[in-house]
């Protein structure tokens, strides 16, 4: 990672296996499994009807088609080392995501992608240099979905001598926390995992408060840490500032941003944020420089 505002570097990987013409054509997948994470968040597992499973890097997204309804950008929530079907975790916020959340095993869904940049976490077989620095992962709400694959890789690397992993998750209330099983698994594998909610509920004995309140009492070494942040944009803004205030170099902070992704190829311009087309240059971008300024930019 450099300290400038350049987008994450693996953009080209998104398009590598398939040319642009084919990238506009959905590959038909069949719903293999459906898991309701919370009242409005569902994980759907997909397998291609024909051909090999799509390869991706943690942080990238696919355009999922609910046939007859529309298409929506959804991050891959699988880990690359997961052998099973491709997983996407969807929040029901509009007609397309509602249709995706309502899908049943055996339904057909179109998949275009993967698109965009990634968290720059080396995968299996890519670890030439052991990175011993701490990684701080901060997720808000369903923002944990695009981070799940990265955390899986980081935790696996920790078990192989890599740096420590600190995972901080914020949610509205305990019933809105996603990926309980993964959180437990990461904890058992040595990651420091802390979950906080805005509002406690009977029986909740965990943290109550803003996710940034977990950072100051944590044991990570700010001078030697990198950070990955995903969640509501205002949460990203405040979390990134809090980390910088704590001593984490802005150039070592990656954030995942979202706009109206449509083509996934940087053609249509709907997802423009300043000089970036986030479907192509993002969603994962370096916080330092231009992005930190853009995060405070107001609509006119």
């Amino acid at each position, binding site marked *: 990672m450099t300290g400038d505002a350049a987008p994450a570097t693996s953009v080209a990987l998104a398009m590598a296996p398939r040319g642009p013409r084919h990238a506009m054509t959905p590959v038909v997948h069949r719903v293999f499994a459906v898991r309701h994470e919370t009242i409005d968040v569902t994980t759907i597992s997909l397998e291609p009807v024909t051909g090999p499973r799509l390869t991706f890097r943690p942080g990238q997204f696919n355009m999922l088609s609910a046939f007859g309804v529309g298409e929506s950008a959804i991050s891959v929530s699988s880990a690359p080392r997961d052998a099973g079907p491709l997983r996407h975790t969807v929040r029901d*916020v509009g007609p397309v995501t509602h249709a995706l959340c309502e899908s049943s095993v055996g339904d057909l869904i179109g998949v275009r992608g993967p698109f965009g940049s990634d968290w720059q976490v080396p995968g299996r077989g890519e670890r030439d240099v052991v990175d011993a620095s701490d990684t701080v992962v901060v997720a808000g709400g369903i923002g944990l979905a695009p981070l799940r694959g990265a955390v899986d890789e980081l935790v696996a690397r920790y078990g192989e001598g890599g740096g420590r992993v600190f995972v901080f998750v*914020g949610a509205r209330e305990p019933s809105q926390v996603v990926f309980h099983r993964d959180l437990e698994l990461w904890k058992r594998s040595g990651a420091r995992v802390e979950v906080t909610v*805005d509002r406690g509920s009977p029986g909740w004995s*965990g943290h109550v408060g803003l996710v940034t309140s977990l950072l100051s*009492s944590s044991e990570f070494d700010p001078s030697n840490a990198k950070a990955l942040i995903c969640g509501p944009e205002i949460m990203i803004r405040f979390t990134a500032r809090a980390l910088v205030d704590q001593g984490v170099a802005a150039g070592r902070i990656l954030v995942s941003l979202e706009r109206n992704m449509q083509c996934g190829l940087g053609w249509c311009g709907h997802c423009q944020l300043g000089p970036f087309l986030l479907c192509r240059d993002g969603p994962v971008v370096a916080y330092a420089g231009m992005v930190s300024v853009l995060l405070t930019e107001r609509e006119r």
Partner: protein
Amino acid sequence: MTRSIAQMLEAHPLFADLPDDAADLVAGCARNVAFEAGAKLIVEGDAADTFYLVRRGRVAIEVHVPGRGPVVLETVGAGAIVGWSWLVPPYRWTFDARAIEPVGAIAIDGACLRAKAQAEPAFGFALLTRISVELLARLQATRMRLLDLYGVRRDR
């Protein structure tokens, strides 16, 4: 080795890096305390005479809501200050504070500390500045939570 109260105070963010004699000044108002899980550090309506600097463990700031029981407003951990009402009249607690797990803390006599702050204005100003930083952080976090960042959008 057993640490003195002054050493414990110096290790807490509220007093860290203050002039050397500050911790000694405060030590006369402070004592080391421990709470079992479930114990109340502060009770709403009681006189706000003692506040706490948390050294270990977690504390829930909560309020009793009729029909709902205790509702946790916030949890705080090591390095936090528990209790602000000792600072300003009428010196009465407005919320409960309960140990969620075994808690180690430094208990400070609020009236004693106020008197020392008044007698040593430079120390008093430094102390209030630090407390204001913590108060501001807590106020900002509370405001952020009011945004209901992760809530379902109602405008669809």
